[in-house]
């Protein structure tokens, strides 16, 4: 059985990661990010 995979683009990964990070900050799991 051949499985057709769908490639996730770099842009999509950046958006997903950014939203995940923002969610971590929003939920308080990432309390404070120093600079």
């Amino acid at each position, binding site marked *: 059985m051949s499985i057709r995979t769908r490639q996730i683009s*770099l842009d999509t990964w950046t958006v997903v990661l*950014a*939203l995940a990070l923002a969610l971590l900050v*929003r939920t308080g799991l990432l*309390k404070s*990010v120093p600079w």
Partner: protein
Amino acid sequence: MGPAATLTDAQAERGLVRLARLAPGMALLIGVGAAGKLLEALTDRVAGAHGVRLPHGEYILWAILLGMAISNSVGVPAVARAGVATYEFWLKLGIVLLGAEFLIGDMLHLGGIALVLVAIEIVFSLAFMTMLGRGFGLRPKLVSLLAIGSSVCGVSAILATCGVIGADDEDTSYAIAAILALGAMSLVLFPAIGHALHMSDRAYGLWTGLAVDNTAEATAAGAIYSDAAGRVAVLAKTCRNSMLGFVVLGYALYWGSRGQAQVVTNKAQFLWRKFPKFVLGFLLLSALASVGVFSPAQRDSIRNLSRWAFLLAFAGVGFRTNLRELGRQGARPFVVGTLGEIAIALITLGLVGLAVRVGSL
């Protein structure tokens, strides 16, 4: 079974191998970025001991310079090349995260007059820099980067745009270098001119926010004058920054339509395919922040995450900068940048003077 969203063992293994391949280069990016931050702290300490106030954000310059020094001397090791190339990923991540910093509501605090001035400034800057760049025969994408950098928010705008329009690394480095050099000069020149003209805090702050490109330099140039001027500068600059998404969107559409030599039957589909999806992420974060999803402290944290992502991108930009190529380009980008910035500073000074005269400030 439809398109697979499940992860097979083989795919997971390939993913791990790929990550392992990227690790050395990513470590190099992190190392150079951290060294840039360290050098900034050291130079600040030395300068502070001598009573000298340095501009914020020189870590950007350090990271780029260190990356350039390595790549133009010993070169990037073969084992690190793939990881160094991830800088574009960090760049886009930084841009999406930066979306949370741009609130539509922030613009309203400045009132109608500031919005009008910002709109005039952006239109004038884009048009003038484009005309100037073309007149000097610069490459079209470098012209776009200089125009966006000088009209909206400096390095952030250049970084937000270079991925969208597919500008090469030399053009990006040139535009960033020109904007940073001019930004550093503004820290000395703007307060001197403001004092010479006996400008009020509000007028000076508004002028700085309208004319200085990088947010850090605009804030610093305002604060050097006075705390009140610094606050107005930040507000005016935020107003300009909030336009970033729209300007990037416009340039994305412009270059998207220009890149098609052949006849395109479905223009909307073509534009959608070409359209950089991370811009949507940027707009999404901006929308979430605008409706109050994040507290001010949380937005600070997201902004710092963006800064860390940009730090890796800056290091990567340095690694990818070829000095021989830059030498071939000559001093024209700096001349164009300087002439353009002088014109923008004069125009915005005139606009602020007009606002003062009609009693709006």
